[in-house]
């Protein structure tokens, strides 16, 4: 029963990792941009939520309704003002610029909020659980997982059934020819980053409710996100969810052997998977 419990908890944890990863996957899929600052943007979203929740006296999940548009607007501006200038044939300049952005974000958060750990107060939701057979499953992890499935389903639907999704796919396929269709590449990229950071807002708020956070924790969130994306296969959103779940289960099972083994177990499974399948489990067929 302990093992089943570990698998269930790991699966639910995987939902959070999938939320970390979805924005990363989206950005890479549309514009081949590897965003090193993604983890710090997740942390930034948690701080924005903290500020909004405290200032307006809102529950963090209600405040999320404001954090999402704030992060989306930030994403659009960030892309149009800074990142678009670095986009081109070479993958290195955007990589370096987002690395610099990561450093700037961490230090700005440190100046604004200090290094003290913070937490988003979600009240009773944090400790509520639901009995499913012999298992007690946390309500919050269930909500997180359900949200991850919904977010990925919504992104998938957007990609394949809307004009915006068509524009994303066309731009991803052939940037120059997409412009001949009247698509302004800078604007399309801005929209992709806006959408990615709206998802990041969800990830950041759930992170901040689940655990305490400080300005320095973005890096490890970035790693979890990357691992989920790579395990699942680049450019495949459902694969990203599967990757998050595999990572989550690896960690909770690792923790069953020894508590200190949790994070390492996730990394080892990740390494094993890319050793056997370098393109991930479900790479997009091109």
């Amino acid at each position: 029963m302990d093992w089943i419990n570990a698998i269930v908890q790991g699966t639910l944890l995987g939902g959070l990792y999938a939320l970390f990863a979805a924005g990363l996957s989206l950005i890479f899929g549309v514009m081949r941009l590897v965003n090193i600052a993604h983890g710090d943007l997740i942390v930034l979203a948690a701080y924005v939520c903290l500020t909004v929740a405290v200032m307006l006296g809102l529950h963090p999940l209600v405040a999320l309704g404001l954090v999402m548009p704030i992060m989306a607007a930030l994403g659009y501006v960030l892309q149009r003002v800074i990142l678009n200038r670095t986009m081109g044939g070479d993958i290195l300049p955007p990589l370096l610029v987002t690395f610099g952005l990561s450093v700037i974000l961490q230090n700005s958060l440190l100046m604004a909020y200090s290094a003290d750990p913070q937490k988003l107060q979600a009240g009773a939701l944090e400790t509520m659980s639901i009995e499913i057979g012999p298992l007690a499953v946390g309500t919050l992890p269930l909500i997180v997982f359900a949200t991850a499935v919904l977010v990925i389903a919504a992104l998938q639907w957007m990609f394949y059934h809307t004009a915006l999704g068509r524009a994303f796919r066309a731009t991803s396929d052939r940037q120059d020819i997409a412009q001949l269709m009247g698509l302004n590449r800078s604007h399309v990229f801005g929209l992709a980053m806006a959408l990615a950071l709206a998802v990041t807002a969800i990830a950041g708020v759930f992170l901040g409710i689940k655990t305490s956070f400080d300005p320095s924790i973005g890096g490890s969130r970035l790693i979890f996100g990357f691992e989920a994306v790579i395990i699942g296969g680049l450019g495949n959103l459902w694969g990203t969810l599967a990757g998050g779940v595999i990572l989550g289960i690896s960690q909770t099972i690792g923790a069953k052997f020894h508590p200190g083994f949790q994070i390492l177990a996730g990394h080892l499974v990740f390494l094993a998977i890319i050793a056997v399948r370098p393109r991930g489990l479900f790479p997009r067929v091109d």
Partner: protein
Amino acid sequence: MPDVLLSVDGLDAGYDDFQALFGVSMEVHPGEVIAVIGANGAGKTTLMRSVSGLIKNTGPQIRWKGQDIGALRADQIAHLGVALVPEGRLLFQSLSVEENLIIGGRTGRKGPWNLRRIYELFPILEERRNVSSTSLSGGQQQMVAIGRALMSNPELMMMDEISLGLAPVIIKSIYAALPGIVGEGLSAVVVEQDIAKALQVSSRVYCLQEGRVSLQGASQGISRDEISRAYFGV
């Protein structure tokens, strides 16, 4: 209607440090079909990419109805009514046939062309509307590329090497559709390696050689010898 739809005047253009065009001038009038011929590397594709905005130009060498469009982005030029069928077709591989056509109409320009008209022109595309564009034959892909450009209801359609790599019978059927296309009052620039085909469909011809216009004139009045000289520089 302006007298001149597109005018290119003394255009220098190229990629990075490589200059491919030297003082090229060309005019397209409303309703006219122009052929651009020349050997590989003569600069035909560079000319098409410059006009469509994929290559940045600075000076006022490219004018659309008298307006300088050299500094505009490709998406802005597309909205003005200039469409390019690029060399090698370059369809969007993750879009279905129909989605490729729909995205071609994204500019929202009004005109005679819509999905139904494209499917009447190329009935095979309607049959294969939901498959990935990569699973089509070369000729069918070319039909999608032409349909995608038409969907924007352009005033000027530039077709770059639309017969390249296709079987003669397919080339024939694609060119058979051309009168129905330009019959709508559309102007066209046809870039071709097949000189006979180019002269047959056009009223005027420009020949490029090493980035310069080596010959221009009415398609019917030009002799084979003149073309050989302009083509190869011998």
